[in-house]
């Protein structure tokens, strides 16, 4: 069966748009439930931590490079480096490690 690329793209974008837009448009009231509020408070930290590790370690062929980048990034962010400096530190560290491990 022959499929049309544009229909594929349409299906892909409609599905992801519906998922992202429905809660935002349908939930208007403030949720009062303490546990649900707490849950939502913790969501970003868990999600972002999960997306960072082990992905950062697997980003390079050399695990050590990824681990070094992770540790440097965590330390920098903990000490208060902002969004951009932390990102640059992670990037430079993995690049330098890869050069030496080659």
């Amino acid at each position, binding site marked *: 069966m022959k*499929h049309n*690329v*544009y*229909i*594929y*793209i349409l*299906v*892909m974008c409609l*599905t*992801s*748009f519906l*998922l*992202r*837009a429905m*809660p*935002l*448009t349908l*939930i*208007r*009231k*403030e949720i009062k439930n*303490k546990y649900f*509020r*707490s*849950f939502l*408070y*913790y*969501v*970003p*930290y*868990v*999600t*972002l*931590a*999960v*997306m960072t*590790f*082990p*992905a950062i370690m*697997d*980003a*390079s062929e050399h695990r050590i490079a*990824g681990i070094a*980048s*992770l540790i440097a*990034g*965590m330390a*920098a*962010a*903990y000490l208060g*480096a*902002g*969004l951009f400096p*932390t*990102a640059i530190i*992670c*990037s430079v560290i*993995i*690049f330098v490690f*890869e050069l030496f491990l080659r």
Partner: protein
Amino acid sequence: MKTESKIPEARKWFLKGLRDGIPIAAGYFAVSFALGITARNAGLTWYQATIASLLCNASAGEYAGFEVIASHGSYITMALITAIISARYMLMSVTLSQKLSPEVNTPQRLFVGFWVTDEIFGASSTVPGKLNPHYNYGLAICSLSFWALGTCLGVVLGNILPANVVTALGVLLYGMFLAIIMPEGRKNKKVGVIIIISMAVSFAFSRLPYISDLSEGTRIIIITLLIAGAAAFIFPVEEKPESADSGGEDEI
């Protein structure tokens, strides 16, 4: 008087969004370049891939989508895979619904929803108190234009950039994630512990038999529900977190 101060407020947030979007844009550019290579291998032209990136704004989702196109899967497969991989955005959307003031109207909410990505969600969840939708517009317009541009160039230029440069650029995104979560982890030790546990569980899930066969998106959803759910019961937040925190987060 309230309406008078609203316009500059919107403008201020929009400009802040554009500025904070720069590191996101750099990371997106690298990741989407790699994505463009996938699209090219799936047989998409540069304009088809660019349209897909402009409309979908999803890294893992688009990657999987291009794989479906490459393997001539059915439209239903496409919808299901997109839904599974992008389900975490639904969770983020629920969270953001609580950050917006009830006055924010439906078209504005649709735009915020259209542009929910991991990074934009992360950046907008650091805003103390209520979220101004214009901040999201600024973030999205700055970063997602580079997302589309990177996808386009990935198709056109293919494998010109050396692999180590692509790796280094891709890691920018992880650095940003760390910069978003670590300050709160320092301020609130419970969050710090939760970050470490989340990383450990994520590592285990990526290596264990059977579980590691699940798609990355599915693993993210499962771990988020488990850990954030458990944390909410073990350490319920007594005060509204944003009003309690609003003092110390101006450094960003």
